[in-house]
């Protein structure tokens, strides 16, 4: 489920001027969320019906081997001690051993994480670079009901782009620009030119959605009284849009930007598959299909943690940007 119309902040506590208390509260929330995340990823293996070890080892696995592996994974211990052991492992950076490659999972993650990070961060930046100028420009162009044709065209085009699944976009991009035109490499992570197609595939959909939302936000902001004041001050149009309107439109855009980064991260799962990108996305799919649960657990943790960090960053950015921001209680 992609775009969701989240209502603006509806309740707020009294603004507590102290950044320390803000920081503490946020940090506390982060820790709690992390704990929930770790517990969920721990429970994952136990929710799966059947025997995960046997499913992974398959044949050539006489009962003794299965037993040995279960013992190695600690699955023959009582649940609580497994949990504590898992917590300890997470805190010390030990995520176990992969069942298929027998490499330490932390090594797999540290090898593949940079590729996914690079891809999703770049895609996020590109999405912003597409969306902010486009949304702002279109907002200015279509304010007050002007340029209805342009508005319709933009709404339709951005809706279409937003509706194309990213793996389909990736395949089409490869077909057109790599296979047919030979402008870019077909797959793999190499020099800068190898980033272009995967980043585009990831960024186009969310960028289009963000541009639409930004335009609507900007239109709403342009209706506000302070814009009229700015016009009364006879500031040049550019100053009005960039210094007065845009910062006010950005607050909800940032919230959505955070959401989009999550969507982007999700997109890496599919796009990496199309482009043979050596990141976490392709790892998690192959691990799920191979039933390599230690890897799946760890990747889920990493993704979850990353998204929590993004949320935190969004909250901080919002607090910085909007001086009125009221900090919500839970």
């Amino acid at each position: 489920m992609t775009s969701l119309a989240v209502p603006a902040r509806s309740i707020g506590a009294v603004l507590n001027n102290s950044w320390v208390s803000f920081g503490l509260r946020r940090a506390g929330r982060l820790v709690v969320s992390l704990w929930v995340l770790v517990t969920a990823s721990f429970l994952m293996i136990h929710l799966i019906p059947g025997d995960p070890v046997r499913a992974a080892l398959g044949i050539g696995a006489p009962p003794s081997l299965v037993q040995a592996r279960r013992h190695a994974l600690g699955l023959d211990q009582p649940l609580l001690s497994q949990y504590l052991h898992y917590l300890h492992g997470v805190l010390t950076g030990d995520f176990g051993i992969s069942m298929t490659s027998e490499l330490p999972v932390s090594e797999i993650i540290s090898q593949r994480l940079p590729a996914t990070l690079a891809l999703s961060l770049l895609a996020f930046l590109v999405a912003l670079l597409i969306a902010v100028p486009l949304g702002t420009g279109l907002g200015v162009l279509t304010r007050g009901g002007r340029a209805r044709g342009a508005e319709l065209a933009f709404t339709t085009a951005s809706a279409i782009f937003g509706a194309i699944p990213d793996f389909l976009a990736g395949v089409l991009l490869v077909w057109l620009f790599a296979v047919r035109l030979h402008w870019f490499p077909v797959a793999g992570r190499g020099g800068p030119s190898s980033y272009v197609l995967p980043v585009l595939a990831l960024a186009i959909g969310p960028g289009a959605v963000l541009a639409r939302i930004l335009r609507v936000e900007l239109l709403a902001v342009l209706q506000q009284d302070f814009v009229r004041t700015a016009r009364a001050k006879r500031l040049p149009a550019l100053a009005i849009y960039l210094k007065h309107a845009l910062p006010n439109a950005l607050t909800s855009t940032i919230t959505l930007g955070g959401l989009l980064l999550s969507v982007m991260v999700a997109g890496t799962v599919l796009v990496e598959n199309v482009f043979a990108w050596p990141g976490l996305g392709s790892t998690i799919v192959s691990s799920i299909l191979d039933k390599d649960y230690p890897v799946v657990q760890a990747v889920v943790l990493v993704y979850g943690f990353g998204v929590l960090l993004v949320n935190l960053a969004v909250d901080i950015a919002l607090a910085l940007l909007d001086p009125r921001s009221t900090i919500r209680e839970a």
Partner: protein
Amino acid sequence: MGTPAKPRWIGRRQLGLAAVASLTVTVLAACGGSNSASTKTATGGGTFTFGLSSDPGNLDPQASAASNLYQMSFLAYDPLLSIDNSGKIQSQLATAWKVSGKQVVLTMHKAITCSDGSAFTATTAAANVNYIADPKNKSPFAGVFIPAGAKATGDDSTGTVTIDLPSAAPFALNGLAGVPMVCQKAITDRSLLAHKTDGTGPYTLSTAVANDHYTLTKRTGYTWGPNGASTAAAGLPDSINVRIIPNETTAANLLLSGQLNAAAITGPDVQRLQAAKLFAAATPSVSGEMWFNQAAGRPGADQQVRLALTRALDLGQVEKVWTSGRGTPGTTLAANAPVACPGDSVSSALPSFALDAAKAALDSDGWTAGSDGIRTKNGKPLAVTFLYNTQTGAAGSAAAELAAGQWKQLGVKVTMKAQDETAAVNTLFSTGTWDVAWEPLNVSSPDQLVGFMSGPVVPAGENFAHIKDPAYDALVAKAQTMQGAAGCPQWLAADSTLVSHADVIPFANQVQQVFGKNAQFAVVSGELQPTSIRMGG
């Protein structure tokens, strides 16, 4: 479909095939589009980039016979003997060989060095064989390439290895040609092999990034390749970069753009690559093979049911759909080159397509159709769990739908179950919840089949279909007394027996192609021979 890779070959955990030696290559097109191959220029050096469809995992060559690991092992390790595509045994680590009864004596090449600098001696070779033959070590090669219970001794002074087999093995040398040898240090400390290589092969692993790429660099002074091939030959790449590319279409694209030098492609992209006139090295193999679960209580235990299910299918049509028109009907059960016993043991023995006869047979067998069309006997409905491998992608599911449709007409309740390689192997070899399975088994010599077609059932043995066919057993017993190819008539007759009894129905062969760009190479039994690579062209 996520990974429409080539059909894998199963055995114990994706058994590869009896490979080894010699250069026989089907050159379909010269690179560069010229119609004459005579003016090939071999520009050696550089890096040869090779695409594999999945990560090999633990790199110990003797711990698993997964096909991707098997391929990589041949880059860094050597077998004792090699075999060319016509079946002729040639030298590799051993320069001379003699088989007498239950004993095999090999004379080792002098001055073989390992990548870690140590020498590979006769005792090392013997230690390898003993390690594999020891059931304690659970090597998948035991009982297939090297008979279980074989004992080897090495004499370093004479440089000979003597292997005593528990019983006569007709294709023992073929078997030895399929087993990569590891160096002394690693025999005892297997952990050395998990992420590194320690072998005698022409290349050695220098960098490993799991699930991404492995880089191997050429070793100098290597002279014990198949039939004496060495790394000094012109045209050999300085390094080999093995890239893991699960998506076959991506691999095809990379081939076309030159970012890959070689990859095995079997899906719809074959057309594009052929149209681009890429070099291709081909291996015939079994692609579609139907098995019936003959465990007690299963409908497949009844031969009439098996025959009826087989006769309800127009296998020619099924084959066409399964291979998207690129395949051929089945020929032998052991179809990998080098085919030890060439011939056609299948087509004459195949039960013919006759839906009405199948219905009649079931009627007389006591399976009467109910009001919903499903046949029942003694209150039990004729329900079949139909397992097929998803590796063939859309073509596979289409063929499966075709078959399921035919069986529905027969009055059978079909539950279709599509599973990927891992899950299919798990079902066949562990959980056993299947009745009909489409899973290809590829070996090159018929004696490698015996464990699958008879003997102890899983999990103790390899007989996952619970086949108990006395006629087959008798013919096999006879064939095993004969040496090598002399027993082929019996082996082929044994094949035919299995087919006519509907124990196993190979319905499609397909040529597996390894395509190449800006390089040429030889593929023996589906494995790319590193010493055969010639860059450029």
